[in-house]
């Protein structure tokens, strides 16, 4: 091939970018895992949650989450029927060790597990100045810790408070939907440890996934729908007071 200097100068940057992509590699996954065959989400069945905190503990252990920060957490709502816009909410240590005994009164109590909503139009991805946070082709919002500047703009942009700056790594951190597990055919640590099945990993592209039947037959809601983030954490039985 006869390569002129001009062609060489044009091709060099393209080759450098391509080489960088090669070096970045692809996430670890099973050999027969096809990104385009999946579109992951989570079903959270609010009435089934008993606030045991298993999911928070399992997540922290599986993902080495630093103390005081949470990839998932559980909130307990205490709502009076006459003022549902002003609920009393607690989440001591993210609900990791469960909750104190509730006082008996006329108000209703329920637990709401929270996590990254893996939004398909995620504001955190939109604002990242270097594209260190991104949506994978199978619908999971991930962060490249080797690329993140630690500017915290994504933390500000998340409407759900799911992100934090890792105190030691100094980069943004959040739920990965246990990407290292689900791409190997496993479920997430939180789903696996939930004793009541309140949390279920769902694959919206899998026609055999029971989520399709569930969505047809239940009133399912997402958090803060007015934010139009395309959230994929689907809540069954969500009370209007939940923020």
């Amino acid at each position, binding site marked *: 091939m006869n390569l002129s200097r001009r062609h060489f100068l044009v091709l060099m940057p393209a080759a450098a970018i391509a080489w960088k992509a090669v070096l970045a590699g692809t996430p670890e996954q099973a050999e027969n895992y096809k990104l385009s065959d999946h579109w992951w989400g989570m079903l959270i069945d609010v009435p089934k949650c008993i606030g045991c905190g298993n999911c928070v503990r399992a997540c922290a252990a599986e993902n080495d989450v630093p103390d*005081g920060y949470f990839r998932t957490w559980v909130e307990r709502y205490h709502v009076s029927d006459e003022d549902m816009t002003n609920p009393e909410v*607690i989440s001591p240590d993210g609900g990791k060790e469960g909750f104190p005994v509730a006082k008996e009164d006329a108000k209703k109590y329920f637990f709401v597990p929270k996590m990254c909503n893996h939004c398909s139009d995620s504001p955190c991805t939109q604002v990242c100045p270097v*594209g260190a946070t991104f949506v994978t082709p199978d619908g999971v919002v991930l962060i490249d810790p080797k690329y993140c500047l630690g*500017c915290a*703009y994504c933390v*500000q942009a998340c409407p759900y408070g799911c992100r934090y700056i890792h105190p030691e790594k100094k*980069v943004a951190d959040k739920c990965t939907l246990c990407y290292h597990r689900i791409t190997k055919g496993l479920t997430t640590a939180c789903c696996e440890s939930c004793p009541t099945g309140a949390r279920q990993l769902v694959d919206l592209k899998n026609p055999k996934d029971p989520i399709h039947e569930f969505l047809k037959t239940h009133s399912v809601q997402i958090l803060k729908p007015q934010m139009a983030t395309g959230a994929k954490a689907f809540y069954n039985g969500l009370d209007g007071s939940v*923020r």
Partner: protein
Amino acid sequence: MCNLAMFLLEQGKIMSGVEGFMYPNEIGLQWSVLIVLYPFITGLVAGAFILASLERVFRVEAVKPTYRLALLTALSFLIVAPLPLQLHLGHPERSPEMYFTPHSTSAMAMFGYVYLWYLMAVLVLEIWLDYRQDIVLLSRSSKGLLRLIYKVMTLGSDNISPRSLHIDERVGWIVTLIGIPSAFLLHGYVGFIFGSIKANPWWSSPLMPVVFIFSAMVSGIAAVMLIYMAVTKLRKQPIDIRCVDTIAMYLFYIFIIDFSLEMLDLIHRVYEADESFRSLNFMVHTKLYFSHIVVQILLGTVTPLVLLFITQVVKLPEHVRKRMYVTSGCLAMVGIFAMRWNVVIGGQLFSKSFLGYTTYKMALVTREGSLVALGLTILPLFILWAFVKLLPPWDTETARQAATGD
């Protein structure tokens, strides 16, 4: 709440001062006083440049004594502008990635380009064109290292024939013309960074970039006015009262626009009273009461506006006017700093659940502490001092000789 507070205290984090419910990851603030400084400093840059353009483009001859000083002030502050951002980053060594691999959907990714454009294509070019004759003359008259510095600064262009200077003048005019929208872009962009965050109702507003631009003009004009008066006093020269009268008049009118926009935003929020209103209203009446109501609105806006109004309608003796200008200029600076504080810090004090509040405790000697912030505020003044020494903004002996064709 008690358990959570206890736990967080045990973890040694800044966890006291939480009221109600915060999402657990929200308790510590992400953006510190350094991010308050960033819009404050870029605002001074944009405002100082707009003042300089009054003379150059709009032919407001009265402000000519401040023209060069305004440009040098803008440059001094612009050089410092990225430092607070850099110090705030978790990985400052990765910041060049914003230039090499910018994310096309991110407003913040524009920072590097807007900054470089403004620094190199507008400010440095305009200053160089304006000073080229002086630099050439200084490179001929000075000795030693200074001579070498001036020689380098001429960039090999030492033709100062009338025709060449005329070209400088025309090109400089075009650069200033391009510079005005660029100054708006520089600071409007900073406002957009906040205004485009839909998750945060305290920030999310299309008015934010406009408010930022006008408040930038207020702070920049006030800063140049104060620096001009202080420097002239230090040089034991008479202050050009016609010049400061004109600057004060512009300051007054732009301040009115700025205040009106801020009040429009406030009234709109109060009247619309959306889901976030109760939470934000509580915050303004408690945690932000002093910095927002007292410092920003009463002390930093209404008081200087009243003082400036008096100087516009009442015929006062010169020395009284000067004192009123200094007072209102200082108060305006305090007010605009408070505005930046209330936007950046205020926007992080409430929970996105609208059910609770946290507290910002400024550290003293950490990387993002108040001492660093103070240092970064003073640093541009030292840079300005060096620039003024190198490139005197007033008529020097050399310039006078050149003007007389000597």
